[in-house]
């Protein structure tokens, strides 16, 4: 039997967008607490968050065909609290409500009146959404590539990284002066892909040595098999290493003039776009490369 992945591109988009939205809100909350003068960057984060998460949820409903045809069935989503997906629905529902309230208040010019605790609660829920996207896959015992404690952490780091990249990307074009003043935020963002590299390496080493040979097969799919080009070239090189090198050049090796020049901004924008591409590629690869334990059992 050739194994067909259960979930494909649509779910990869959903995992990516939900993580991006949660990360963007958490990023905006961080900015609010650390650099409240960056009102525009904060606003971009608050707008990006509900939009991306809602697009992701619409994709998800579209993919759940039986529910899409009978929308009332989505009510049942709150019935089995033993399911990670049910918890995800709770987190996403509360998060979307808070994110929408915050976004609307900000757009109405009441950004500074938003209580800090609302930003903090929204940020925590945003992080819950990011972690949830990893736990959703993590509890499927069938797939060694998913069924480990590293995946939710990897998805969290990647999600916050993409969320912050989205804020910075919009900031470069819409509010370059604030982008120049958000050094603290940019440095935080810089370290995430490096952390992610270590997490990915750990995930590969641990999964390849999983008790089930499907772990080895999944890792081989990524590092030396059908998906090796996407893994090494798009995810590792373009999605993690190139942004790290570009940002390192911009943040630590360039003069202020270069960093704040138009060229400098374009380099930062390129790096942020690559982070986003890498984030999506990671989720798609994790979905399609995972092999089930029963595929490679001796009885097969």
């Amino acid at each position, binding site marked *: 039997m050739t194994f067909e992945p259960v979930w494909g591109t649509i779910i990869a988009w959903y995992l990516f967008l939900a993580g991006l939205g949660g990360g963007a809100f958490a990023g905006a909350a961080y900015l609010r607490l650390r650099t409240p003068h960056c009102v525009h960057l904060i606003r971009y984060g608050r707008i990006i968050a509900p939009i991306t998460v809602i697009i992701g949820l619409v994709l998800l409903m579209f993919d759940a*065909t039986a529910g899409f045809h009978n929308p009332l069935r989505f009510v049942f989503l709150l019935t089995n609290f033993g*399911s990670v997906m049910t918890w995800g629905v709770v987190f996403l529902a509360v998060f979307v409500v808070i994110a929408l309230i915050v976004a609307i208040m900000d757009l109405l010019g009441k950004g500074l009146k938003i209580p800090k605790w609302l930003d903090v609660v929204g940020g925590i829920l945003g992080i819950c959404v990011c972690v949830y996207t990893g736990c959703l896959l993590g509890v499927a*015992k069938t797939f060694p590539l998913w069924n480990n404690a590293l995946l939710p952490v990897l998805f969290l780091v990647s999600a916050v990284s993409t969320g912050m990249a989205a804020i910075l990307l919009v900031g470069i074009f819409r509010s370059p002066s604030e982008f120049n003043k958000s050094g603290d935020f940019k440095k935080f963002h810089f370290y995430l892909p490096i952390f992610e590299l270590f997490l990915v390496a750990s995930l590969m080493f641990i999964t390849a040595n999983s008790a089930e040979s499907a772990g080895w097969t999944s890792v081989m799919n990524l590092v030396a098999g059908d998906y090796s080009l996407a893994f090494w070239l798009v995810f590792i090189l373009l999605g993690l290493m190139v942004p790290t090198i570009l940002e390192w050049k911009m943040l630590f090796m360039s003069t202020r003039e270069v960093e704040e020049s138009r060229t400098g901004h374009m380099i930062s924008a390129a790096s942020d776009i690559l982070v986003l591409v890498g984030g999506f590629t990671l989720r798609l690869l994790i979905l399609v490369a995972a092999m089930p334990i029963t595929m490679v059992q001796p009885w097969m």
Partner: protein
Amino acid sequence: MARYGMLIDTTKCIGCYTCRTACQRQNGLLPDEDFIRFEQREVGSLPDVRVENVPLQCMHCEDAPCAQVCPTGAAHMGADGIVTVDQGRCIGCLYCMAACPYQVRVRNSRTGAVDKCRFCTVSAEQTGTKMCTCVEACLTGARIFGDLDDPDSQLVREIARTKAAPIAGDLTKSKVFYVR
């Protein structure tokens, strides 16, 4: 209460797919929807080689991973330990398909809901269908259906005699036993 199970004797199976077709007819399944998946492998070494046919279907696990992850409660443990998918409740998120270690769940391409082997004998009480047709239709008598809690049933006696075991050890608490 009965605890229904099945025995599949792969040494008798000739891989004719009759069970699968009979199941599709009895349950009114779509042409691309089958509850029984066939796997084949070569066993033995030359010159004594044969092909082993392994029909796989829902194992009706007592610790059903599909029911654990199903967010809507559509996949659940029904009467007599039969793992059931409530077709009117399923949203088609496919989480159960990701959780099932045997890859024996299928999506109905018309409704989008997920479905699988229903151990029809038991559903007969509701729908009036006859005994599992996969058991009746099998040309070589490779399948036996019965109550695992009834020590006098043909099923329990044959499991003991043939030393039949679940297909993947104790991966889940499977109620389908295989003779290999």
